[in-house]
């Protein structure tokens, strides 16, 4: 593992969709090393906090030595990140964890709920580069919170909003169920997904009902983390068959059949 400990510099700050911020940092070694689905632990100097915060690389540009992060403000750490501007330094630790496995030839459905979309620009780009057929399903509360489709060049983009202000009126999981039925053969897709645990639960439920194999799904987990490198044992998630996986080193991208979804609900959604 190559770990960036030198500071990266923020070279761009923007608002890619409502309530979200995108920071682009310049850090050539990290940009060259990161794989789609991997994350970095970002140091935050917010009052009273001590731990780093895990953020997926939204995309990387190895030539330009740049990485993008897309996030929303949910607490002290993200609040501090949100007021970083061009020229500020950011202390990255990473790239960390296992990204998505992109091997194979089957069509891919990418499915993002809310800020789960943050991981996908780079994933879709890599899949398209591998000439795989990609359908990107985006779910949000309302249309202004959707990341624009031009961030997924080469993919079919379908959207779902809770309020019906754009695309499918309803949850992205329901959109998925219909899309899957309509567009591709049921056994013949890979599914990559990231989003809130309830969305993942609903997806798993649906997939089971459809009789699809969980093996074809990879989820990017967003479990709270301590170290991000496997030493604190704090990011455990229930493993199918007993025991635990560490989401920072066995994940964050994990095949859905490796997770015990029943115990997962107890832990994160009871």
């Amino acid at each position: 593992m190559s770990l960036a400990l030198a500071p990266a510099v923020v070279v761009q700050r923007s608002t890619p969709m409502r309530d979200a911020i995108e920071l682009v940092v310049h850090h050539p070694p990290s940009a060259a090393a990161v794989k789609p689905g991997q994350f970095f632990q970002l140091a935050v100097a917010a009052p009273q906090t001590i731990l780093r915060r895990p953020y997926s690389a939204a995309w990387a540009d190895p030539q330009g030595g740049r990485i993008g992060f897309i996030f929303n403000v949910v607490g002290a750490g993200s609040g501090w990140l949100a007021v970083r501007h061009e020229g500020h330094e950011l202390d990255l630790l990473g790239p960390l964890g296992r990204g998505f496995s992109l091997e194979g030839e089957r069509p891919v459905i990418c499915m993002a709920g809310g800020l789960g979309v943050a991981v996908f620009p780079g994933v879709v780009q890599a899949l398209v580069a591998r000439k795989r057929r990609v359908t990107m399903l985006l779910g949000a509360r309302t249309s202004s919170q959707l990341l624009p489709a031009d961030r997924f060049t080469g993919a079919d983009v379908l959207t779902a909003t809770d309020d019906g202000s754009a695309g499918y009126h309803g949850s992205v999981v329901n959109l998925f169920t219909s899309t899957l039925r309509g567009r591709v053969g049921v056994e013949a897709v890979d599914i990559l997904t990231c989003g809130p645990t309830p969305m993942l639960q609903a997806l798993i439920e649906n997939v089971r009902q459809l009789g699809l194999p969980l093996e074809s799904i990879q989820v990017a987990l967003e479990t709270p983390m301590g170290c991000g490198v496997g030493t604190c044992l704090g990011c455990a998630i229930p493993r199918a068959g007993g025991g635990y996986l560490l989401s920072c080193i066995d994940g964050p991208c994990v095949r859905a059949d490796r997770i015990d979804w029943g115990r997962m609900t107890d832990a994160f959604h009871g």
Partner: protein
Amino acid sequence: MADQVDLSVSLGRGLRLRSPVMVASGTFGYGFDAHGADRTALGAIVTKGTTPGAREGNAPTRIAETPSAMLNAIGLQNPGVDHVVRVYAPKWATWDVPVIVNVAGDAVDDYVAVARRLDGVAGIAGLELNISCPNVANGLQFGVDPRMAAQLTAGVRAVTRLPLLVKLTPNVTDIVAVGRAVEDAGADGVSAINTYLGMAIDVRRRRPVLSRGSGGLSGPAIKPLALHAVWELAAALRIPVVGVGGITTAADALEFLLAGAAAVQLGTVNYVRPQAVREIHDGIAAYIAAHDLRHLGALPIRQARVEAHV
């Protein structure tokens, strides 16, 4: 100039460290996963708590951040002592940094079994008895009672020639009494302290954040508490005291060394700044050089002591 300062320290029974900066149990795994730490600045690695058999640990949620600190209830997830002896120890035997195995269990027999299994194994430089884990049933029972702590220490002492540290819990009325008891029972040193019993409640979900309800508090928040414990212990014991709790900077480490600690352990900071080991090592060296003290033994202050039982 700081280069010429002697930072080596002896923790008794032949355990000599080239640096007083160790890494604390549970914050560095078994030495294989933590990257970014500069091992040439490291005095010793203390492993994750190790039990006779493998353990899966507690259900999530296992950690939570609190002001300047974190709570953990890992529950001693570890691969068991056999795995340690068979897979890890041979690798450690090739390293130039000593590895101390942190030993845990539910009963005296567990500790004795682990210690016996580790005795004489190449690659193992010492033991640290964790009689203070707040995150397993019975974890604290040995640590809060001087008599039980002594019994446990004596039991382990009888089966090993390895240097033996005993890691004390701060969740007691009188930590010095426990320290004295384990000293008399044959400990070569004490590590002070393990985590403080704490809790966080998720007000949105109306339940404790951690699956176990409570957990152990570590990080900068506890530094003044740990420092006080070390100050008291260093005044009362003859064996070395290893200071642990909230250290994140060289100044923090120096507070512990000035308070009488023979060495320090870095815990939570390893998660945040892997380079802390190097920075703190160098900061200590610079301080000693600047104060013309030459070696670590000249650091402790006691004269300023105001009262015996504050």
